[in-house]
């Protein structure tokens, strides 16, 4: 589901403009078309793309439908990683045994992503590639230092999620590339991923959300990575604040000051930047409470 950053000025539409539709037979086929047409757009689950098309916020020349390419929805253990194929839907992931054993946090997160019918169609890769700064999965990828696998004309490459998100809906995907999968490092001894967010309504984009990558040793937080979403123009990593927390524990005022210097909070319709800063600080407390529980 799309979140409209701002209401469009001018014309108002609800039926998509004309485009051509191409059902890709395999990934190379899709890459070839995309490489040669700058205005072509990849269609996977379409749950963010279709609203944009219907409202003519996006008018591509061609949709390259990759949804019927086989072999892109595997969920497997690949060495030290959990690999999730780009076309695995959110529902596939939520129902997957490997995920529930190896990365239970992902299931909790996906429960908060939109609603069942959207999750039946929306894909893991689509969410990662779209890079909505208010969405959970990009922040998860950054928090867990996941590797994003891209296929292009020159073969596959892997890029760390920390280098993948460049700005508002801007990623390191090249014109000829398609996201084919995400590799999440498997949890190490003492490691835990925790997640929380504050929404006005269940399934909405959050006013602020946090994913924490925590390393515990003898029941103490030994290392911590904090990644916020719905706070700025991309997943916001708060390393300075995490370090401060490790030193001083939870102190609202101190952490708030630190977050405010570290993240450029951008307000939206449901919460001002001030509100987001407050909630971000509170989310650290909520995560710690969860950890203690």
């Amino acid at each position: 589901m799309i979140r409209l950053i701002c209401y469009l000025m001018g014309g108002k539409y609800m039926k998509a403009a004309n485009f051509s539709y191409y059902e890709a037979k395999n990934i190379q086929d899709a890459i070839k078309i995309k490489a040669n047409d700058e205005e072509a757009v990849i269609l996977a689950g379409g749950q963010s793309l279709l609203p944009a098309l219907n409202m003519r916020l996006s008018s591509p020349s061609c949709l390259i439908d990759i949804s019927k390419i086989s072999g892109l929805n595997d969920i497997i253990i690949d060495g030290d990683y959990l690999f999730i194929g780009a076309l695995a839907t959110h529902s596939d992931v939520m129902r997957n045994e490997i995920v529930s054993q190896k990365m239970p946090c992902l299931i909790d997160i996906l429960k908060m992503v939109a609603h069942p019918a959207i999750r039946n169609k929306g894909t893991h890769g689509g969410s990662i590639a779209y890079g909505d700064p208010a969405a959970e999965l990009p922040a998860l990828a950054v928090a867990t230092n996941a590797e994003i696998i891209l296929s292009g004309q020159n073969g596959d490459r892997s890029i760390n999620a920390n280098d993948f998100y460049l700005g508002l809906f801007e990623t390191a995907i090249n014109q000829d590339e398609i996201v084919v999968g995400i590799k999440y490092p498997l949890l190490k001894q003492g490691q835990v991923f925790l997640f929380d967010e504050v929404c006005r309504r269940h399934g909405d984009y959050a006013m602020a959300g946090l994913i924490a990558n925590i390393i515990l040793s003898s029941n103490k937080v030994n290392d911590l990575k904090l990644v916020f979403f719905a706070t700025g123009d991309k997943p916001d990593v708060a390393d300075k604040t995490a370090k401060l927390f490790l030193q001083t524990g939870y102190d609202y005022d101190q952490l708030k000051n630190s977050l405010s210097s570290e993240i450029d909070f951008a307000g939206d319709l449901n919460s001002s930047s001030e509100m987001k800063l407050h909630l971000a600080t509170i989310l650290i407390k909520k995560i710690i409470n969860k950890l203690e529980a």
Partner: protein
Amino acid sequence: MAANNTLSISFTVNGEKFNNVNVPSRQHLADFLRSQGFTGTHLGCEQGACGACTIEMDGKAVRSCLVLASQANGSDLKTVEGFDDKMMEQVKQSFLKHNAFQCGFCSPGMLMTTKEILLSKKKLTRDEIRSEISGNYCRCTGYQSIVDAIEECINEVN
């Protein structure tokens, strides 16, 4: 290259076969189904937020405004007009009994969501039912009667 502004697709709706039908590539599935006379599928927002157009595609609930008709090539579709099995008849009776709809505009999507809940065989609490249907907007009922109906169905099905 097979890219085109209209496509020829084949699929089934409620078991009825549609062979080599031409569809504009830009048309979403809800508009297409409605153009074929399946007007039970309603459009409330065309951006995936209201849930009124939710139908069954290859066994799963989807928003038909967020799927292109062309993507339905080879699919088995089921719309409210085809919800006639024993379980769904029971669901309808329960909706009727609890007045779990007023104007009826949200009902096709609400029934589809209920169907998926029941097929999952999960024994949900009222709060969990509310969570499952929280993507389906109803302006009339205030939801309580819908939760009542679904709760009753869950008890009967399990």
